[in-house]
C-alpha cells in the first residue's frame, strides 16, 4: 500500500498497533480539514506491527497527551518534504483533562470548572493518580 509523502506536516510513527484511533480522537483530528492518513498494522522490524498517522498540516500537538497514550510514538515534523525535527516522547509528569477521575467521593465529581488533573505516581508501572484524591487512573 502506498501513501504519498507529505510536504509540510507531522508524522506520528511507531504507534502501538491498534492505538491509532485513540491517538486520532485524543488529538481531535476530526476537527482538521487537511488530509490525514491513518495507517494500521504496518510491518515494522522493531515492533512487528505498528500504526502510523500522517497529518498534512503543521499544528501544535499536545505531546503530553500523546506521551500518556503511547510513549513509544516518535513525532516527526516535516518541512518542505524533509524531516525538520524528530521527537521521542516520554511519560508526562502531569496530564490534564485527558482522563476523568472515577472516584465518586472526589471533589472533581461536584466542583464546577475544575480541571481533571493527574500526576505520574509510578513511572515503571505507568500509574497516574488524581491530584485531588490520589485515585489511580483506570482506562
Amino acid at each position: 500500500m502506498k501513501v504519498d509523502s507529505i510536504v509540510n506536516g507531522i508524522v506520528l510513527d511507531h504507534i502501538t498497533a491498534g492505538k491509532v484511533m485513540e491517538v486520532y480522537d485524543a488529538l481531535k483530528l476530526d476537527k482538521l480539514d487537511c488530509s490525514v492518513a491513518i495507517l494500521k498494522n504496518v510491518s515494522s522490524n522493531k515492533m512487528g506491527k505498528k500504526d502510523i498517522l500522517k497529518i498534512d498540516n503543521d499544528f501544535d500537538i499536545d505531546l503530553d497527551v500523546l506521551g500518556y497514550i503511547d510513549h513509544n510514538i516518535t513525532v516527526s515534523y516535516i518541512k518542505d518534504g524533509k524531516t525538520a525535527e524528530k521527537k521521542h516522547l516520554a511519560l508526562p509528569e502531569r496530564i490534564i483533562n485527558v482522563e476523568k477521575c472515577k472516584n465518586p467521593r472526589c471533589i472533581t465529581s461536584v466542583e464546577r470548572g475544575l480541571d481533571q488533573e493527574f500526576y505520574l505516581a509510578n513511572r515503571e508501572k505507568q500509574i497516574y493518580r488524581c491530584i485531588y484524591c490520589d485515585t489511580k487512573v483506570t482506562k
Partner: protein
Amino acid sequence: MKKSIIDPMDLSVEEISDLLDLANDIMKDRTRYQDVAKHKILATLFFEPSTRTRLSFESAMLSLGGSVLGFPNANVSSATKGESVTDTIWTVSCYSDIIAMRHPKEGAPRVAMRRSKVPLINAGDGGHNHPTQTLTDLLTIQREKGRLNNLTVGFCGDLKFGRTVHSLLKALSRYEGVKFVFISPEELKLPEYLKEDLLDAKHLEYKEVRTMEEVMGELDILYMTRVQQERFFNEQDYLRLRDTYILDLNKLELAKKDLTIMHPLPRVNEISTEVDDDPRACYFKQVENGRYVRMALILTLLSLDHEVERL
C-alpha cells in the same frame, strides 16, 4: 513553611521537626503562648460532623488568645445551597486569618487552597488525608520514644480504609530504620498501591500477619484502629474479626515493657478499658498532644512561631 497544609507529605522532615519542637516548647509552659495569636481569627469550616478535631482546633486557637469563627453544623453552611468549595473559601478567607476545613469530598482542601487568601489546614477530607492527626501521632511517638527513627511500628485492625494509618505510614517511611508490621484480616489488608508505590519502591522492611500475638514482642509502637462494621457484607465475619483484634492485658503480657499503644480514636471495643490504666496506653496522651501540635501549626502558618523565646 508553606502557606497551607493539605497532605502530611507537604511538610519536609525538617518542617515537621520544627513543628514538633515548637509543640514541645508550648507543652513546657503554655501560659507563655496565651496571647501570641491575640486578635487573630480561626475559621473552622466543618462540612462533615466532627467532635475531637473541631474541639481540638478551637481549643488550640483559644489557648493562643485568638478567636474562633464557624457554623454550628454542616447543614447550615452555604454549601447546602449549592455553593462551590471555591466560592465558600474565597468568602470565608475575607473574614479570617487562618482556616481549618473538613470536607466529605476527597481533595476539597486542595481546591480550597487555590482561592484562599489565608493559610488553610486540612482537618480531614473524606477517607483521604488528615495531616493534623499525623502530626499528632508523630509528636506522640517522638515524646514517648524520644525519636522517630529505628522503630518497629505495628498497625492493627482496618488497614485498608484507615486514612490515619496510610498517612502515618507515609510520614514514617521517611525516617531511617523504621520497620512496619501490618496486623489485619485478609479483608482489611493494606492496599496494594501502598506496598508497591511506597514500601517496595523505598525498599522498606515490612511484614503482614494475621494475629497480634505472633508479633507483639517485636513492637515498639502498636497503632490500633477500629474494625468498622459497615465495611463488611456479612455480620458473622465482622464479629469474628472484631473479636480477633481486641487488645487486653493478657495480650499485653507478650509485649515489651516500653511499648507505646496508640489509637486515633474513637475506640469501640478494640482496646479493652482495662488497658487504659497501663502505663503503655498513650491514646489519651495523643488527644492532648493534638491540641499542642495544632497550636504549633497555627502559630507557624501565621508566622508567629518565633514570638516566644524557647525554654
